[in-house]
Structure formats: C-alpha cells, structure tokens
C-alpha cells in the first residue's frame, strides 16, 4: 500500500448558487500514484481538483496534505490550456520559474528541457494563437512540469484532441510519470485513457457529485499496445462502464 499523500474525508462542496457539486466524498491519493477521476459531465471532477489546489475551500469535511511539503510543489494543467496570449511559448513555460524569482540564465536550461520533452522544439517563439489545440496543450503541460512538481493535477488535458494525438500524449505522460514518480490526479471522460494510464480509477456519479466506485488497475509499467488489446483491458473497461452507468442511475435522458 502506498503512503497517503492527500486525503479528502467526507468533503461536501455547495456553491453559492445552491448546486451541490460534491457530497460526502472521501478519497485518498497515494504518494506516487496515478489516479484517474472519471465521471459524467458536471459530477464535480474539476471541483475536486480545485479543492486540492486550494483554489476553493470545502463547505464541509476535511482536505489534508499528509505530506505537507508536496503542497508547495503542485502543478495544474487546466481544462483549456490557459496560456498567456501575449507571451511566446518559451515565455509561457518560463512563467512559473520567473514568478518564483529564478533568473533567466538559470531557467533557460529547464525551459528548453521541458520544451523538448513535450516536442515543441522549433516553436519557442510562436505565440499561442499560432499553435494547434494539441500543441497548446503540450505547452501547458510543459509549463506544469518545468517546476518539477511532486503533485500534478490534470483536468481533461486531452479532451479536445483527436485520438492519434491523444494516444501520443498519453504515452508521453505515462513515461514522464514512470520516470519521475510524481503523484498524478488525472481527470478524463475517456474510459480507455483511464484504464491505460492509471494505477487506480475513481468513478464518480452525478446528482449529487460523489464517488461510486474505485478500481485498482494491476498492470505493470511501462504499459504497451499489447495491454490495450488484452482481454484484461476489456474487463477493466467493462467494470468501469458498469460503474459509470450506476453513477448515472438517477438521471434519465429523454
């Protein structure tokens, strides 16, 4: 069993509009874990991430950093790339280092490494509007990893991408995680992606937002295409799909 890094106990989040985004959510994130959150739109996935990031506070319940140092070493990849439109790719990726007071000379090498890692070499001087959606997302990922975070929160980073690009970036993220042993919390709609990448998947239900099931994916890394084709992959997928369906239970779409 992994050492717990972050625990949420009986967390409820009610927005001022009266929406109950999360109800009685308890979740433990292990140190070095790749945890995926899947669930229908509006079930509170983004809300969980913003609670963990400290961008909003729980209405009830506790959020506890079991490894307090990690709290300062957090990076967030937002649902849209959230790049500064007036800065070049390179300056966007340098931003967290600049804000932390690291000089250009010192940050240059780190920034170049991050750019190379996400495959944006040659586009350092391009502005975000000159990039494709996938490239923008990669710039956003580079900005997150340039600080060498301990905890990486990713909110549907590949939601808007085509399958080929998505697979490629999945591969990259998995390798990075495998190398660096970060703790990753990854939000997605995509069951394939969740099974392929994660050590564990938490399935969420809607109305109110809650966790309906958790599934451990016991498959060694690095994972390959063979895993995707295996019968076991199909079983995991099936279990997730069933859990998702129960989570949708109370909602009928006419």
């Amino acid at each position, binding site marked *: 069993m992994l050492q717990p890094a972050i625990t949420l106990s009986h967390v409820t989040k009610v927005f001022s509009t009266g929406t109950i985004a999360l109800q009685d959510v308890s979740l433990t994130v292990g140190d070095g874990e790749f945890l995926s959150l899947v669930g229908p739109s509006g079930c509170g996935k983004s809300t969980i991430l913003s609670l963990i*990031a400290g961008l909003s506070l729980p209405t009830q319940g506790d959020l506890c950093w079991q490894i307090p140092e990690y709290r300062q070493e*957090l990076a*967030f990849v*937002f649902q849209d790339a*959230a790049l*500064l439109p007036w800065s070049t790719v390179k300056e966007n990726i340098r931003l967290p280092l600049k804000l932390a007071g690291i000089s250009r000379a010192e940050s240059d090498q780190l920034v170049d490494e991050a750019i190379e890692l996400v495959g944006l070499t040659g586009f350092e001087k391009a502005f975000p509007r*000159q990039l494709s959606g996938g490239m923008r997302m990669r710039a956003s990922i580079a900005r997150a990893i340039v600080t060498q975070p301990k905890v990486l929160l990713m909110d549907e980073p590949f939601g808007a991408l085509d399958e080929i690009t998505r697979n490629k970036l999945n591969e990259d993220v998995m390798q990075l995680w495998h190398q660096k042993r970060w703790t990753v919390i990854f939000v997605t709609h995509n069951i394939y992606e969740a099974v392929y990448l994660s050590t564990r998947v938490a399935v969420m239900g809607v109305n109110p937002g809650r966790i309906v099931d958790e599934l451990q994916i016991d498959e060694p890394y690095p994972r390959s295409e063979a895993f995707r084709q295996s019968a076991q992959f199909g079983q995991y997928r099936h279990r997730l799909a069933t859990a998702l369906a129960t989570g949708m239970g109370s909602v009928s779409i006419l």
Partner: protein
Amino acid sequence: MSRSRPMFPARRSLIQRIVSPDVLAPLGVGVLFLLAWDAFVQISGLPPYLLPRPGLVLQTLIDNWNELFASLMVTLQITVVAFLAAAISGVGISVLFTVNKWIERSLFPYAVILQTTPLVAIAPLIVIWLKENTFGALVLCAWIAAFFPVVANTTLGLNSVDRNLNNLFKLYNTNPWQRLIYLRLPSALPYFLGGLRISGGLSLIGAVVAEFVAGTGGAKSGIAYQILISSYNLQIPKMFAALLMVTSLGILIFIGLSALSDRLLRDWHESAIKPES
C-alpha cells in the same frame, strides 16, 4: 518554415496597403464630395465669404501656410501634453481603482461627473483660475476631455482577466504586484489602447475648445485663434483652411494611434491579427 519565426504571415508592402479598398473607398467618397461641393458653389453662385470653393481653400492654405502651421504647432503642443497626461494618469487611476474596490466605488462617480460636465461650461473658470499660466489652463481643459476613456477602458481591462489565468497565478502564490505586472496590465493592454484612440481625438477637441474659450488673448495663439479671428474678419477661406488643418491633424492622430495599437497587439490579439489569405 524558418526555425526562429514559424508561421508569421508576410507583411504587406506599403504600396499594397495604399491601394487596398480600406484606403481607396473613403478616398473616392472624399473626391466625390469635393466635386459636388465645387459644383454646388459654382451653380448656386454663393460668394466665397459664405462658402469658398475647395480650390480657393487650398490656395489660401498654401498662401498662409507659415502662419497657420505655427498656430497648429501651438495647438499640437497642448494636445500632446494633455494626451500624455491623460494616458499616464488614466492608467494610474485605473490601477488605483483595482487596488481597492472602495477607491473605485468612491471616486468613479466623480470621474463620470468630470466627463459629463460640458467642457465649454467649466473651461472659462479654469482659464480664470490659472490666469498666469494659460498653457497650463489649456492643457488642463484638454486633459479633462481626454482622460475618461482611458480610465473607463483600462479599468474594464484590468477586471477582465481570464478566470483560468487568474487561478494559475493564485496557484503560483503570486503577490498582488506580480499579478498586476504579469497578468492584469497585459490583459488590459488592448482595452487601454482602445481608450487611447478615443482620447487622442478628444485631447485635440479639448485643446481647440479651450483655446476658443481663452479667446484671442495670449501671446502664442493656437489654431482655434486663427479660426476665431478669420471668422471675425469674414476671411472665410482662411477659416476653412484652418479647419482643414485641425481635421487633418485629428486624422493623423487617429491613424498614428491605430498603428501603434496594431503594432503592439499584432502578435496576439484578435483585433490586430491580419486574416490569412
């Protein structure tokens, strides 16, 4: 694709820009208008002291160029000083507004009052109060006319930061100063420049109005003085020539500020991006 600057659209040459419909269409309208004007005066037989023909206006402008140009420079000085003051103070006031909601709440109404009070009504007071410093009085009037668009637009811009970017900066534990420099001011830049474009014209109008109010006194006399004197003396062609100069100056100011705005925003803001052909 070059390595350093991928995918930049080629800049259009000067000739291409001049021959573009954006320039030709209004130019055509202008020429038609002048022809109609000329024909109208000729047919109706109006005397030049009521409505001079365009050719006469041009001739008068050339004949009186030195005198008129010197006056225009005086007005331009007032305009430029007032404009710079409006730009700088406008940004300063907007930043102050965003530091604390209470400052905005308590001061913004007064900015509106200053803006909505007719300048012609308060200009005489200002000219009297600053009797020993006419230049200062004129600048102050022009500033009052010009500063509000900068304040209103920049304040809006400073408050229009993208929510995700705001969260990003919160996440990085930034202090308010860093958020101002690296996030809010750049976000506000397009709004600020939009305000500047309006203020440029307004500072010229403000300067001319103030000169009118100040009257014919004062050793250094601006272009409004020329317009006034010409109309007293029924030198209507000269009056039109002076008017033509003011208008041209206004257009030049607008073009200059638009070019500045396009230059500063061309890499990233939708308003300044040239469509790909």
